[in-house]
């Protein structure tokens, strides 16, 4: 079982040759060490108010920042010290903010939770995973926002793909008219257009995956620097790649089907001579 108390402290570096005997140690995070130029063995004064009376302590350890999403936008430095010393410094008395309790087994956690809450007064025991769910609500919101942006992107991509496929089949209307006059069935032509469209979509999504992977490297490099955290902000997982490829394949097939059906819906001679287009031009000019 561990107890934790959180308080705001002020750290001031002092001359390391100070003769005070037996100071206790604290651990500080690497950002504080870098910004204040502190290293292991340095003596500092910690106080609960700026310039107030405090304790001299020795930097005993430097901690690397954790990849904790809930701390990503926070700029406070972190220091860990002995509980009794912090209680005394912060004037907190014999109080703590929380206890962390480890049990030997999963069922043990349930019974411990029930036992503690049955006698609790002024506090409550929670499962760690429930707390994790509660503290990750911010990221659920961000995740929902990203999904909504993703849906808009998919709509735009679908329209783009359909446009490109219409252009491609329009360009080849004479070839397709010739194929139809030779006796190739409408079904085969549609199938051919769909295969072509699917190939364009798969090739495009492969390039998109490569582009996304490069973008994720840039994003991680940038935001790790901005927020000084080892957290990964963008990750390209096999699941995401599968979803992206499957989605573009479906979109590609759909766009190919629409473009192909539009093409076979016109008489082959009109396609060959461009008569339908001439008619449209004349109507437009009129």
């Amino acid at each position, binding site marked *: 079982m561990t107890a934790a108390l959180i308080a*705001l402290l002020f750290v001031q570096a002092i001359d390391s040759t100070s003769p005070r005997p037996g100071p206790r140690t604290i651990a500080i995070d690497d950002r504080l060490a870098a910004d204040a130029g502190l290293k292991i063995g340095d003596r500092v004064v910690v106080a609960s108010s700026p310039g107030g009376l405090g304790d001299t302590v020795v930097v005993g350890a430097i901690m690397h920042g954790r990849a904790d999403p809930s701390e990503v936008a926070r700029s406070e430095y972190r220091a860990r010290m002995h509980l009794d010393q912090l209680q005394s410094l912060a004037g907190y008395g014999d109080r703590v903010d929380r206890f962390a309790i480890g049990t030997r087994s999963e069922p043990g956690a349930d019974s411990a939770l029930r036992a503690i809450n049955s006698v609790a007064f002024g*506090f409550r025991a929670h499962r760690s995973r429930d707390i994790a769910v509660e503290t990750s609500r*911010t990221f659920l919101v961000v995740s929902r*926002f990203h999904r909504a*942006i993703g849906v808009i992107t998919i709509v735009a991509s679908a329209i783009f793909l359909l*446009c490109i496929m219409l252009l491609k089949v329009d360009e080849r209307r004479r070839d397709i008219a010739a194929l139809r006059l030779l006796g190739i069935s409408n079904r085969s032509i549609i199938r051919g257009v769909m295969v072509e469209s699917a190939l364009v979509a798969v090739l495009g999504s492969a390039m998109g995956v490569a582009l996304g992977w490069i973008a994720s490297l840039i994003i991680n490099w940038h935001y790790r620097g901005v927020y000084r955290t080892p957290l990964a902000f963008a990750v390209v997982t096999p699941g995401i790649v599968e979803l992206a490829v499957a989605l573009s394949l479906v979109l590609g097939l759909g766009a190919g089907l629409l473009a192909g059906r539009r093409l076979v819906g016109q008489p082959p001679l009109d396609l060959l001579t461009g008569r339908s287009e001439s008619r449209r031009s004349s109507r437009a000019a009129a």
Partner: protein
Amino acid sequence: MLLRLVWSSLVRHRARTVLAVLGVAVSAAMLLDMVMLSSGMRASFKNLLLSRGFQIRLAPKGTLPFDTDATIGDATAVSSTLRAISGVATVSPVLGGQLYVTRGDRTTTTIALGIDPSVQGDYEIVAGRSPRSANELVASDDFLRATGTKLGDTLSAAAGFDPQLRAVTGRRALVLVGRAHFIYMAAAQNAVALPLQTLQQMRGEPARDRVSLFMVRAASNDRVDRVLAEIERALPRVTAISTETAMRQVDERLSYFRQLAVILGAVSLGVGFLLVTTLVTVSVNERLGEIIVMRAIGVARGRVVLQVLLESTAIMLVGAVAGLGLGLATARYLNSILASFPGLPAAIDFFLFEPRDAWTALGLLAVVGVLAGIYPSWRGASLPIAVTLREEAVA
């Protein structure tokens, strides 16, 4: 004549043009949303901070208001020092804490603000009145719903628990005298406000003569910087934050959204550009014969360029106008997602529409429309007349 030619060219392939306009509309919607996101959050936060006219906030050294549980000591002395500074019009102290309100066998936890009712800037009275005596409080609608109380009820509230004695601490009977809208609170947040001294007494020794922040109103906006400098000189143990500084700090924390807005806005413009360039280029390629005949009968090169540029700009502008409505609808939806951020004041909007945003999006799309037409128009205008005429005739 020129406009008729542009119109004919656009309606010749209706499906293609409609799809292009749709594609641009989606891009324009995304662009408008991103322009709104990049500026809306800032504007909305500024409006919130200045809504009650307090331009300066004082928080414990090294913190932002209510960012930690830290408090400012010797509040009475600090308050006197602030009032003595020339240019300070109003000083409003605030202490934050939690209260546990018991009704029957149910206990409701609520955020409590200790304020000076005569100068407070945290709430607006919706019904009833502000507290006038020590044992009165006002509460939010959410609190009234959660506790099932109404104006005039007397509530039993405590400031803490003593687990060893199994007793509540700082218990008081408080009369509910007002229903209030709390300006800085998150949606669905239980909140009450009561006189500062009452809350300090209820919280006991740890809160004696302490506050979480001071809000300061300068006599005029142009004196804010001078007052801020004076406060920093007179009170080196607190952090004085002007509205501008607070906004800078919020900008830093929410820089992700601004950067996302810039990236997605640029991608939207890029997609719109590619779509229109591709369509207009293909359209020009299909009409090479037509264009070259026009050139051969004496139509100036500049007129051909202008026609193609007008086509691309028309697609962009029609798409943009359609996209503005779509953008407002999606912005509303996206805002409803981000509004559910835990702890975010209900008054903050991530997507705040200002007419300037629409003009910005429209202007950017018009520029991109012109840029998208440059390559195809150059291609159409630079064709050698005789060679192209022969090739087109053979084709």
